[in-house]
């Protein structure tokens, strides 16, 4: 009996050596490469961002169904996360022997500031880059639909219903962030000379967001108001004031002066928005 089992084992072992040479790859599909060759007709966003970011893709799908959440819903990921010409990513980077960009400050995508597109400075006050480097001339940017078909993104950089050179229509001002001293003369005619922000109720929010590292730039402030992202806000506010009133007098003249006004009776309360 033992000898029969031993014989069967040897036969199976020998057959296995010759008949089953294949090994199992660690990751299924890891040798199926996405095309990234734009110049030869490949997709610039051949790497599907949605594969790793399905939650964001889902948000976009939901936004399509909800008119209130329409902004940006037609944009491919690259429209925001592979912007070029702003100095943040590879738009002006070194090219390899075949003209392909290697990436310098970033490889696949950039975490952007909302104000990269929405600020009033046009390139943050820097002079506009020469034509080859301006994002509208950058082939990577073509997929945002600069003259491309609608199914590959909005026809114009800055989305319908805007047309033509329309960046002025998406500018966010009123925070006093315009760098007038370094404003490009080329774009000066389009600037918004009264962007002082001196009356903006949320200016401190924006300035403090700029100083905070949680998100890039002032994105904390932008996202808090302009998206459905949950925001828990703890307000500590005075609920009254102490007024010090002094009567100044001589025998013949008197008048009342307010010597001091200061906040009192602070309370803290929490607001929860969205989410």
């Amino acid at each position, binding site marked *: 009996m033992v000898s029969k089992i031993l014989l069967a084992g040897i036969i199976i072992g020998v057959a296995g050596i010759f008949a089953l040479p294949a090994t199992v790859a660690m990751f299924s599909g890891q040798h199926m490469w996405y095309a990234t060759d734009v110049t030869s007709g490949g997709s610039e966003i051949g790497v599907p961002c949605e594969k790793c970011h399905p939650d964001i893709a889902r*948000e976009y799908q939901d936004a399509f169904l909800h008119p209130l959440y*329409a902004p940006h819903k037609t944009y491919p990921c690259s429209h925001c996360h592979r912007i070029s010409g702003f100095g943040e990513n590879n738009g002006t980077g070194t090219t390899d022997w075949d003209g392909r960009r290697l990436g310098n400050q970033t490889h696949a995508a950039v975490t952007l500031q909302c104000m990269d597109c929405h600020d009033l400075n046009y390139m943050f006050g820097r002079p506009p880059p020469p034509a080859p480097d301006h994002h509208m001339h950058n082939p990577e940017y073509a997929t945002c639909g600069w003259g491309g078909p609608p199914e590959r993104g909005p026809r114009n950089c800055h989305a319908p219903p805007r047309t033509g050179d329309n960046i002025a229509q998406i500018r*966010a001002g009123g925070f006093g962030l315009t760098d007038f001293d370094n404003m490009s003369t080329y774009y000066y005619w389009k600037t918004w000379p009264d962007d002082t*922000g001196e*009356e903006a109720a949320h200016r401190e929010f*924006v300035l403090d967001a700029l100083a905070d590292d949680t998100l890039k730039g002032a994105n904390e402030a932008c996202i808090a108001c302009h998206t459905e992202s949950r925001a828990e806000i703890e307000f500590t506010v005075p609920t009254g004031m102490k007024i010090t009133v002094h*009567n100044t007098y001589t025998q013949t003249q008197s008048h009342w002066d307010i010597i001091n*006004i200061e906040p009192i009776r602070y309370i803290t309360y929490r607001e929860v928005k969205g989410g």
Partner: protein
Amino acid sequence: MRRAIALTLLLTGLAPILFFTGSDVATLLQSQHTFTSISDPGNQINCTGCHSQIESELVGSLIHTDLDCEDCHRFNGTGITFASGDGTGSTPGNRSHAAYTPRCLDCHGGNGAWITNRTGRLVHAPPAPAFNETDYGSDYSAHKPFVEDSLNFELARGENEACLACHTDWSLDIEYTYFKSIEYTLSNWKLTSFSYTGEREYTALIEKSDAKHRFIATEGITCVKCHRNIYDALVNGTMGGTNEDYLTHAPIEISTGKVGHRWDTDNPWNHYRYHYVPSLNRATWVNRSYCYECHNVKRYAEENPGDEMTYDLDSVRADTNSEVVHAAEALWCQTCHGDGKTKEVIDNPDHGGEGHSKRSFVDDIKTNYARTFHGDICMGCHEAAVHPPMSGRCSRCHQHGNADVYIESEPTGYAENTR
């Protein structure tokens, strides 16, 4: 043991599966890619999403409940351009982006403002009397220094501290400092000496609901909350033993002394007393309307049309400056009782002598002494408690005009009138 082995094998099997298949990464903030549309003109961002507390305050307000956030905080009458839209006709915002902190006078200055309220109706924000004018109007407004001085502080925009103090439910802690007492000598109807001494600190704590966005209508403002020292002086004062309590700020008019006349109810003008409040009525009569009797005769007359004839309020009103003040007039006794005024002082006809109606006695006091002392100079004689019953020396004051007076400021009002 077997269960532990089975569990270990199960987890060992699941871990690689999760490792190889779970490649999703979570975005830092959920929903941060769900952007709110701002395509329409105006504001589409829900302010109360972050400011629900303010919304709840406004719901409990007596006025402004018909307004939405944008009516005040995106008011279009200041020249500010707010961010709006993202297509043709959109604006980035210049001095502000989403909202600004308004000055109350943005709407209530000038001729007021027309605002489309939350129901779509056009409503008028009325101008704040006097304060709507250049330089906040006349100097007769008692609270004008408060408004002007508020500009020096950063707690609120512009002069809003002054507005908030009276017109909202914000709590207040007001610390007053003023003189404690004066002394003077009256000789033959002339002040031959005068001095002021000491400093009094008085704190009025006004605890309201603490809600800055709970606005109080003008009719709901209670003067004596902030001016508690005046209320205390009028209602409580200082115990006067068997005589009247020492109650400054409520002068009695000297009666004719004729048979059938009561010193505490009538006067030489032949009408019921205007200022003096009998002890039984003090707690209820001393209110905003009582303050208006002197400090805003215009409003008092409007609110008490039945008193017009009795007190000749039309003429009294013309003597005052109540037409050009905001809430209250900073006045002197002389305003109504000076030479040539409708209620110019009258001497007691029973006692002869020139009395204080001659030689512009009241006008001279206004000219030569600070307004802050003026009332108490008069109260040195006109405070009920300084009139000792059956003293038998009527002529000292009433005829000869001789008195040594010591009187304390509110709230005590204690006074001595001797010679």
